[in-house]
């Protein structure tokens, strides 16, 4: 790079000539260049991160190669940033390198998709489990726990012997060696997969269970017996980890029913051995997946004394287009249904409430499995009176159907659910898993095409999809975000703005549509977290969609239809299985966990140090912050003499502001003077901000009426709020280029920092705003923080408050929209300069917000 060599030469020259005055400026120039490179790399990393995040929920097609490339590019850029930072700071932050290495190793590890068994206990009660924990308890148990935690349905009591325990078991038995033996023999075609299966299961069954696992098992069983008030039989269920959960390895022994507590260990081993069925082995060989990474958790569930049990498919796989559900039921325990012993009733129900029975086949059910009062499990004759009757009432069927569809909606895929009716007539869910539907997609898409013709298109192709999906419901238009009711079920939420208060309603809505908002904003992020289909920035939603309207939202094609497009909803639920489950998505999700989350948020906090960096984002955040600090420090040494790069900006308000131009921040025609006015500022972001700050009404020139109390605290309080650290520059200083702004502004007793990038490329743009400090006591300061935060959120910022400290972020907006927000920030900074003094009580928060919004509006209209 031409510049680079020039800068170095200048530095070199100054070293020899010892030109101290000039030397200071030269050093600054060299640093500025490195800072620009750092900035560039910083933006690159943010860009890569944003693209990667979008791949998870957006329209991107990516593959493993993309993921590898992503990891490589990130590594390169982050490393480059570290080198630049250490150049700028004279090798002050070498400790970032080990932090970087750790994260880099973790990301690469994820890429290898090796079994990631988190440090977890050997056993866990089912009551503590939810869907996030599938790495520990396996898919099956995670789902069951989820149903209990988030949905109002009963599941059996139980505990899980975790993947950690399985790993321990495998390690202690040294099965790895045996596996390699088997794999080699199969590769040499010396043995078949069947032979391998029998050898491996014999191997496992002949080994003793490690003591610590056996102990946990005993303890878990004892707890169950105590809770249930007596001994009882167990259902021992495999709960495979990761990929295996998605492949139906229904081995012979993957579920054992009616297990006596004394046989629990044996049952565990048998179930674990089902990892090595010949089918599983063949599959893994074919897909090049190492057998040695196979792992599972095992659930121990208390068996329900069922009067009836069976299975429900929330969509009949034999005839998916019929939009019906399939239920099978038989007296006693589900063993009969699952094993195919004895007959069972079959019902076809409607998926629409009240779930009418469309067809029924009542079989003659001779045998059933029961748990008699003394324990054990017996196969008995069904009393003839019952044998010929329908096993469960239509009323129970309707309840079952409702519950099954509720689970389907929550899990977002067609479900295969095992259920039971207990001795009190209550429904118990025993197992739920996704059901793969082999549908004739051509037929279905033809029907979808035909169906959508019959429904009016209300809105099409407007705004941006923030969370993909298809949903239906009744429109509720938000009029007053301060008076939000509880949403009835099946609502499509429609709002003008993406207000923070709406975020609370999102999880219970079927879909969210907004007039204004960004797919990277706060509301969109919440929508994605809860997987609620949403479309933002539609513009006309509140005009076109009216309260009470029934609509179908297709947030895949970006079309909103009038009415309920049944075929589209059906298509959606059949098709949902499942992109998110794909290996690449899981890997990307795990990679992003080491790349995106920001732990180092507050540069003043104790944890703002290299050793606390947990992600690439932390590292670049730290590096950026320190680089700015050092650059500003460097500027202390120079004064605003006759140079084109460093000037004082003359403003209408009584503050000093010095700018350092690192490239294009001032207009080229700016004369060689120590001062300039706003018109010479080429950095549009700074110009807009200053215009807002100096706008009439923003800067209140009369000191706000301090009541006696607050004034006293400001004068006598233990130290003025600001932890004035040696690191924080005390001058008002801005580093500017034609697109970049880093502004540090001290007004009164508080500190504002704005860091932003505004260009023609929407995806590169961002604003970061930090605010701290104030006059008066902590409660008033906190009120002011809340007021500022509310205002910022109205402008789509994502805001975090910690006491009085605010950090707000905004990304990927168009240039003009960002400049408008800089203007707003300038106005806000001025406006709230003395606000905390008048924050006498909580109602003043709302007052402040209203006053500000009104003032902005007034300014715009004049």
């Amino acid at each position, binding site marked *: 790079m031409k510049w680079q060599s020039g800068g170095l030469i200048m530095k070199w020259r100054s070293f020899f000539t010892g030109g101290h005055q000039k030397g200071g400026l030269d050093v600054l120039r060299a640093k500025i260049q490195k800072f620009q490179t750092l900035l560039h790399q910083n933006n690159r990393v943010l860009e890569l991160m944003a693209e990667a995040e979008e*791949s998870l929920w*957006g*329209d*991107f*097609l*990516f*593959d*493993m*190669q*993309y993921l590898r*490339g992503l990891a490589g590019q990130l590594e390169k850029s982050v490393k480059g940033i570290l080198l630049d930072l250490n150049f700028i700071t004279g090798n002050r932050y070498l400790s970032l390198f080990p932090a970087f290495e750790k994260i880099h190793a973790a990301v690469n590890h994820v890429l290898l998709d090796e079994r990631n068994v988190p440090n977890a206990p050997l056993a866990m009660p089912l009551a503590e489990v939810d869907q996030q924990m599938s790495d520990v308890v396996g898919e099956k148990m995670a789902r069951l726990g989820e149903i209990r935690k988030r949905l109002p349905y009963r599941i059996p009591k139980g505990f899980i012997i975790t993947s950690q325990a399985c790993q321990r078991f495998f390690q202690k038995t040294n099965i790895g060696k045996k596996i390699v033996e088997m794999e080699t023999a199969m590769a040499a075609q010396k043995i078949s997969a069947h032979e391998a299966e029998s050898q491996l299961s014999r191997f496992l069954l002949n080994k003793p269970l490690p003591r610590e696992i056996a102990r946990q098992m005993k303890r878990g069983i004892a707890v169950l017996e105590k809770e249930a008030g007596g001994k009882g039989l167990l259902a021992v269920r495999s709960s495979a980890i990761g990929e295996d959960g998605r492949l139906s390895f229904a081995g012979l022994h993957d579920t054992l029913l009616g297990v006596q507590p004394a046989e629990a260990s044996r049952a565990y081993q048998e179930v674990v051995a089902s990892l090595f069925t010949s089918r599983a082995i063949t599959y893994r060989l074919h897909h090049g997946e190492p057998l040695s990474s196979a792992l599972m958790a095992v659930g121990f569930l208390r068996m329900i004394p069922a009067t009836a049990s069976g299975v429900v498919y929330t969509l009949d796989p034999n005839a998916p287009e019929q939009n019906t559900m399939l239920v099978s039921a038989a007296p006693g325990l589900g063993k009969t249904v699952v094993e195919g012993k004895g007959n069972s009733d079959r019902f076809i129900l409607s998926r629409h409430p009240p779930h009418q029975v469309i067809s029924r086949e009542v079989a003659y059910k001779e045998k059933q499995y029961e748990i008699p009062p003394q324990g054990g499990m017996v196969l008995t004759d069904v009393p003839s009176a019952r044998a010929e009757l329908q096993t469960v009432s239509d009323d129970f069927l309707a309840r079952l159907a409702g519950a099954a569809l509720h689970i389907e909606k929550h899990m977002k895929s067609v479900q295969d659910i095992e259920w039971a009716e207990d001795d009190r007539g209550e429904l118990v869910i025993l197992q739920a898993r996704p059901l793969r539907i082999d549908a004739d*997609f*051509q037929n279905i*898409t*033809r029907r*979808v*095409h035909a169906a959508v013709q019959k429904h009016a298109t209300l809105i099409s192709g407007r705004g941006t999809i923030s969370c993909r999906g298809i949903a239906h419901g009744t429109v509720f238009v938000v009029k007053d975000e301060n008076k939000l009711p509880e949403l009835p079920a099946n609502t499509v939420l429609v709002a003008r703005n993406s207000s923070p208060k709406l975020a609370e309603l999102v999880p219970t809505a079927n879909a969210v549509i907004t007039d204004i908002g960004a797919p990277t904003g706060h509301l969109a992020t919440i929508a994605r977290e809860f997987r609620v289909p949403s479309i933002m920035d539609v513009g006309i939603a509140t005009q076109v969609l009216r309260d009470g309207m029934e609509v179908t939202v297709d947030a895949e094609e970006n079309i909103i239809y009038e009415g309920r497009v049944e075929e589209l909803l059906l*298509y959606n639920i059949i*098709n949902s299985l499942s*992109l998110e489950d*794909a*290996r*690449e*998505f899981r890997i990307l999700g795990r990679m992003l966990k080491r790349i995106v989350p920001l732990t180092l948020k507050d540069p003043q906090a104790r944890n703002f140090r290299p050793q606390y960096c947990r992600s690439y984002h932390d590292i670049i955040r730290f590096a950026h912050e320190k680089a700015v600090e050092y650059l500003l420090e460097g500027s202390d040494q120079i004064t605003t003499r006759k140079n084109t790069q460093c000037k004082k900006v003359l403003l209408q308000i009584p503050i000093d502001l010095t700018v350092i131009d690192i490239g294009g921040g001032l207009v080229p025609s700016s004369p060689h003077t120590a001062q300039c006015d706003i018109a010479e500022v080429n950095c549009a972001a700074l110009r807009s901000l200053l215009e807002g700050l100096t706008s009439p009404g923003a800067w209140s020139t009369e000191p706000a009426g301090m009541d006696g109390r607050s004034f006293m605290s400001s004068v006598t309080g233990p130290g003025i709020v600001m932890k004035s650290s040696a690191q924080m520059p005390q001058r008002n200083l801005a580093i500017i280029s034609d697109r970049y702004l880093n502004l540090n502004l001290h007004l009164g007793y508080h500190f504002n920092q704005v860091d932003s990038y505004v260009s023609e490329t929407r995806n590169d743009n961002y604003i970061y705003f930090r605010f701290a400090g104030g006059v008066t006591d902590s409660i008033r300061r906190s009120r002011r923080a809340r007021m500022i935060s509310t205002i910022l959120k109205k402008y789509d910022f994502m805001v975090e408050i910690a006491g009085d400290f605010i950090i707000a972020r905004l990304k990927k907006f168009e240039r003009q929209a960002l400049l408008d927000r800089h203007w707003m920030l300038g106005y806000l900074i001025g406006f709230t300069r003395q606000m905390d003094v008048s924050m006498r009580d909580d109602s003043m928060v709302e007052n402040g917000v209203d006053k500000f919004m009104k003032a902005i509006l007034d300014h715009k209209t004049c």
Partner: protein
Amino acid sequence: MMDRKIEICVVDDEPIVCKRLKPMLEKSGYRVEVFTDSKASLERLTEKKFDILITDLKMKPPDGLDLLHFTRKTYPETRVIIITGFATIETARDALKGGAVDFITKPFHIGQLRDLVLKISVEIQQGQQEGRMA
């Protein structure tokens, strides 16, 4: 008179690609067959003529270029689209010289591929109509 449905063959050794493209294309009204095993796809291509072949470049033999050459030789009317993560100028040139109608690098927006397929299918259907009228 209804036009025959456009038939598309997708070949990519990464399962996620087939998994995403199949529903997207079927939703747009095409008949789609997908293969992660390029050998199997070649067998299928010998028995059936497709309107469009979408194939990855870098796969275990037969690779994308092999499939491209085979198709151009056997069914000159079949349009071939190359989608690949390994994009170099040479490979792009080889593909286009070899007769591919387009070359898309991963990652890409799915809508991009959909629009391209739509454009091609319109051309094909216009060709069908002209054929009938002639």
